[in-house]
């Protein structure tokens, strides 16, 4: 029993965090809102040079060959800065799907992803829209029971604007004949794995988002004075923040367990992911609510940075399976006759 990360994993997290906090500032995110694509090719290239776009690409295809467990701490840091670039999607969803598809597709696209030269996105029908379809060179799309692979030329996109200007969402029509790359049980397995990995990505980012909102609000309430004191010295404000800290603290281990379960292919991985997504997104939503309250009217403005993180937290809670989807999955397993519950069942 070892529920800790290695020194290497923790050092990697620290260095990625330093990089992201320096590079992906709220100013840079706001600048992205003013551009057509909302994406920053120079930043993507930097991420590729750090090995991050290819972190889960097998070494044989020019990547680092790491797993969801290695990436989960980095995904938290992507959340901490509200990274607009599709790094979490690439590492957790697109690359594993291509790797599992194997063959020509993997051999062609994976090295390009690792080099930062190509972007591949996955579209599930449950998500209604496809994230970052506008910058994708290849789209792996669910069409009923099948999975099709369409190149950028083979699709017609319609932008569906989000309240979060950093999120770029599209409905995708496959115009030309795009090949079916998986069907039947293979397609079902690929799609369900993608669903779980996408949900894990949301959970990990939610942890980072919650922490960022806490940090911003602790700073704000330490500076803002009313009644001759910093408002952060009032217990009503402190308790709002402490409540977030409690929920956040207890959402971390479930998220790390979910990453482990996916990485080693545990039978109960889907349930672990649903647990993580529910509690991590709840923590981030509570952070959004209480931090907004502690910011007073300032939190309701476009000018204050809080909404960058708040809106992303709101969006992540309802994508890659909303609460209803994930609660149903947990309910199915715990209310089943003979379900293993209680003391000693967690790691059995």
């Amino acid at each position, binding site marked *: 029993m070892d529920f800790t990360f290695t020194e290497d994993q923790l050092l990697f997290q620290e260095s990625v965090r330093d990089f992201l906090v320096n590079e992906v500032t709220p100013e840079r995110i706001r600048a992205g809102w003013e551009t057509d694509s909302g994406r920053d090719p120079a930043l993507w290239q930097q991420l590729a040079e750090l090995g991050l776009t290819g972190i889960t690409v097998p070494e044989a295809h020019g990547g680092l060959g790491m797993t969801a467990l290695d990436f989960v701490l980095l995904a938290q840091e992507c959340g901490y800065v509200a990274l607009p670039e599709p790094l979490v999607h690439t590492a957790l969803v697109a690359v594993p799907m291509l790797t599992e598809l194997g063959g020509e597709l993997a051999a062609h696209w994976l090295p390009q992803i690792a080099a930062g030269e190509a972007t591949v996105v996955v579209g599930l029908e449950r998500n209604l829209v496809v994230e970052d379809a506008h910058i994708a060179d290849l789209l792996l799309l669910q069409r009923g029971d099948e999975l099709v692979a369409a190149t950028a030329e083979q699709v017609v996109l319609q932008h569906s604007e989000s309240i979060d200007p950093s999120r770029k969402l599209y409905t995708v029509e496959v115009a030309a004949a795009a090949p079916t790359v998986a069907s039947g049980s293979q397609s079902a397995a690929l799609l369900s794995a993608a669903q779980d990995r996408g949900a894990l990505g949301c959970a990990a980012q939610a942890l980072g988002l919650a922490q960022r909102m806490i940090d911003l609000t602790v700073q704000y309430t330490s500076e803002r004075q009313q009644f001759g004191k910093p408002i*952060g*010295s009032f217990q009503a404000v402190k*308790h709002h*923040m402490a409540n977030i800290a409690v929920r956040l603290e*207890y959402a*971390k281990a*479930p998220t790390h367990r979910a990453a482990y379960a996916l990485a080693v292919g545990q039978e109960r991985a889907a349930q672990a992911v649903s647990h993580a997504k529910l509690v991590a997104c709840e923590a981030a939503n509570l952070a959004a609510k209480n931090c907004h309250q502690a910011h007073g009217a300032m939190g309701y403005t476009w000018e204050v940075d809080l909404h960058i993180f708040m809106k992303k937290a709101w969006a992540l809670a309802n994508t890659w399976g909303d609460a209803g989807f994930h609660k149903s999955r947990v309910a199915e397993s715990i*209310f089943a006759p003979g379900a293993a519950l209680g003391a000693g*069942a967690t790691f059995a």
Partner: protein
Amino acid sequence: MDLAYTEQQQAFREEVRSWLAENVPAEPLQTFDTAEGFRQHREWEATLNSGRWGMVTWPQALGGRGCDLIEWLIFEEEYYRARAPLRVNQNGIFLLGPTLMEYGTEEQKARILPKMANGEEVWAQGWSEPNAGSDMAAIRSTAKREGDKYIINGQKTWSTRAVWADWCFGMFRTDPESERHRGLTFILVPLDSPGITVRPIPQLDGLPGFAEIFFDNVEVSVDNRLGDEGAGWSVAMATAGFERGLMLRSPARFQETARRLVELYTANRESADCDPAVKDAVLRAYLDAESYCLTTYQTACRLNKGGKIGAESSTNKIFWSELDQSMHATAMSILGARAELLPHAPAAQGVGTWLDGWLFSQSGPIYAGTNEVQRNIIAERMLGMPR
């Protein structure tokens, strides 16, 4: 990361399981808030100790097994699974015991720990006073040094188990000029000393689970001082640390409650589902109990590897106490009109021990530092908010 038990850990679990299967009393003991129940529980402690299961984390030399935190969690899982009796000497074995090992003299350890381990001496706490509750530094009870004795005067209250306990431990002001955290000393007091009056306080269930203790010129030998004179506050803080909190309220307890709640819900599904909030609350109970377990294991693994515990441990007490309260509230909703009935009432069918648990869960957010005080600690020490 490797979330599987080692062979050694699995073997340990088997050993605990089979010993408990043979030794846990078939009939539940009476509550230890009655004289007879207290006696039964004291006897159970002796039985546990005879198998060296009394306190597995204690060193071998003191009758323990030198277990690490993961083995402790495994022991607790088996203990709660087996529905073994509650620990009547928890103040002693979980709180004072580890503090004694850290601050006690060799003479004190040899004199006190073995009798604590076998239930011969059961311990009560003596922290709170009428005007020192959340504000523990406001303690006014005094211990005046005279030669090799302290003369104690004053009053303690909310002293759990004090009605039938043999000893109490607590803080007393040894420097009459001192204020707040300074000038306090940690002293162990035999409750049969002349000058002591114990007045039981009936709890919500009408039973005397705690008491007031009055001290009227009570003489205590200086041999019963733990740590240096005036160093009581730091000794007491050690008693309140994370590991002690883990000992007192390990995840197994809440996971078993969550499991029983799922059972209660599925057995009463038709009526329970009339309130759509109930299913969600049951689901949430399961998830939160599971989160508490996962987080505790993660922290325990980090500590086993030499990691240090930080201010984030203050989140622990809020999490389990609110979980316990909400799980029992959900059970009360499911039981509906039966919820208020005492277990032996003729109309009480299938009410189990939920009412008792519900009453006790009301105390969780209050004892061991109210949740409001915990929230202040989290905001100031963990998040760095201004005082």
